């Protein structure tokens, strides 16, 4: 019985982290899937969100800035706003250049951000991190606190998913697709391409910050190591590519599927003898890279490819369904 209860708890944690990753992938999907922006600095915006929300909600501490004890709603919104401002500045510099530059610049931003987190000890407690971050619903008994937090995450994913579906199908999504398809024509059609790109970039970064904030509260602890690029940037990319970029459902699916693979593969690895188990950790990373290669080459569209809703058949006579 306990075993099953254990499985149940593990499933909750799997789904919670999966959901947080789904927020990240949805954010990246706006940037890459909808807008075609190659952001490799996910970890940076994730970190912004995590620290802003952590500092705003923790009790006073001698180790770091804090003691504001704001409600979660305020801290989540603040996390997204700060991230939006930084995204705006980055976008201002990089969005008009070739996509590779954005990649290089964002990976740089993420690294700079880690440097700031490590060195500005007065605010962040440096490399030692912020501890005792409150967690929503933590006063409820086990497993209800975990279930409620999971519900919060899933609800957020669902709301974001719906909002993005609406946006993707809307004229906004249409313009985004148009820009991706043919930038010159989009410009000739009077679209302010830079502004739309900027919007995509900022919205994506806001979601990444939100995911960061959720992570900080979920872990109840955050330090610069939690914003390590391997699991906060690269893994998210693989999730999106595998799930199917430009497809919101694909993004969510990819997040849950890859997180399950990433997390559960270790359960298998831990069954191996020790010496091997240690080395298997590296095989897991190798596989992440390899899966990315396979999908890029063989299934570049991922599990679910992009679907764009076409306008319905018109009422005007003379229109016929295509054969």
């Amino acid at each position: 019985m306990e075993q099953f209860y254990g499985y149940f708890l593990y499933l909750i944690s799997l789904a919670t982290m999966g959901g947080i990753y789904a927020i990240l992938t949805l954010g990246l999907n706006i940037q890459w899937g909808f807008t075609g922006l190659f952001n490799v600095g996910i970890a940076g915006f994730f970190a912004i969100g995590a620290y802003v929300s952590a500092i705003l909600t923790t009790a006073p501490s001698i180790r770091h800035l804090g003691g504001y004890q704001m409600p979660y709603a305020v801290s989540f919104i603040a996390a997204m706003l700060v991230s939006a401002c930084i995204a705006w500045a980055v976008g201002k510099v990089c969005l008009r250049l070739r996509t590779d530059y954005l990649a290089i610049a964002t990976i740089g931003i993420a690294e700079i951000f880690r440097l700031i987190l490590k060195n500005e000890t007065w605010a962040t407690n440096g490399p030692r991190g912020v501890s005792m971050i409150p967690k929503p619903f933590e006063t409820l008994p086990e497993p209800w606190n975990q279930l409620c937090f999971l519900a919060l995450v899933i609800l957020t994913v669902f709301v974001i998913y719906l909002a993005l579906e609406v946006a993707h199908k809307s004229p906004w999504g249409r313009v985004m697709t148009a820009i991706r398809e043919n930038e010159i024509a989009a410009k000739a059609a009077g679209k302010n391409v830079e502004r739309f790109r900027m919007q995509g970039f900022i919205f994506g970064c806001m979601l990444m910050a939100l995911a960061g904030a959720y992570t900080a509260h979920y872990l109840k602890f955050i330090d610069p190591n939690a914003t390590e690029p391997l699991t906060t940037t690269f893994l998210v990319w693989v999730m999106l590519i595998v799930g199917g970029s430009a497809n919101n459902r694909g993004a969510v699916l990819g997040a849950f599927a890859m997180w399950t693979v990433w997390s559960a593969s270790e359960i298998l690895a831990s069954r191996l003898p020790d010496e091997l188990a240690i080395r298997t950790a590296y095989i897991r990373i190798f596989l992440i890279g390899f899966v990315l290669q396979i999908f890029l080459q063989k299934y570049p569209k991922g599990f679910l490819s992009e679907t764009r809703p076409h306008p319905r058949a018109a009422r005007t006579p003379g229109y016929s369904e295509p054969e």
Partner: protein
Amino acid sequence: MIEFANFYLIPGILLGSIYALGAIGITLTFGILRFANFAHGESMTLGAYISFTLVQMTGLHPLMVMPISMVLTIVVLLFIDRYFYRPFRKSHAIMLVMASFGMMLMIRSVIQFFWGVQVKTILPGIQMPIVFFDTLRLSPKHIMIIISAIVLMLAVHFLLSRTKIGKAMRAMADSPELARLTGIDTEHVIRTTWVVGGALGVASGVFLAIDTHVETMMGFNLLLPMFASAILGGIGRPYGAMAGGLIIGLTEELSSYPWIGTEPLLNPGYKAGIAFIIMVGMLIWRPTGLFKGKV
């Protein structure tokens, strides 16, 4: 003043030449294959590890075994190009960036798997510097690194300016379409790019290993400064990359010189950010770089 030369200027030049060698490979792939190669740092790491193993096996000086590790690394790079990059020749460049991204993880984890994560030394012991004019301190290995780097850069210069393939490479970096029209064998040029970039990458990896040690993250840690050097010099401009590398290396070291007062100008904890700041500044004011590269 002499302290400035000993502890800031010379290390800066040393670091700069290591960046410069690596950045040439980055800028060539950027110019010729048209993508930002995120796996370049890993080919440096691989070269350093192969050299380490060869040194262990033969007991020779790292510089002696470097040619062999260059060949081995280049074989790996050509294999990777054939199976992981070539399928994307006609696709959007971003696919290649992503493929190189995955490659970065793959190469690094293979290195970690086979060699482990323990830090290794390729040239153990302390080398006391030779003191010139009673004050200027130069370590023999640093002289060796700087001279080797200069020799390699001259070789690159000779290759690009005197040989047919070098000219073809420059033509292709300038305009791939035009190069194709004029009948240049683009696949051949691409292979040569990997050979040149790989060899220089291995050299910079080994030099870094000689100066410090061999470690699995060494290449990744150099990636950002190398990108910055390539952008600073102008994308597709090998000479620009050399200049860019030197400038970035020097600035990084000089940034913590106590220019004002006795405290370092910049908290050395932020040293790694220098390359990035130069790069952003460059992207804002002059995205074509010093040597008018591509945007």
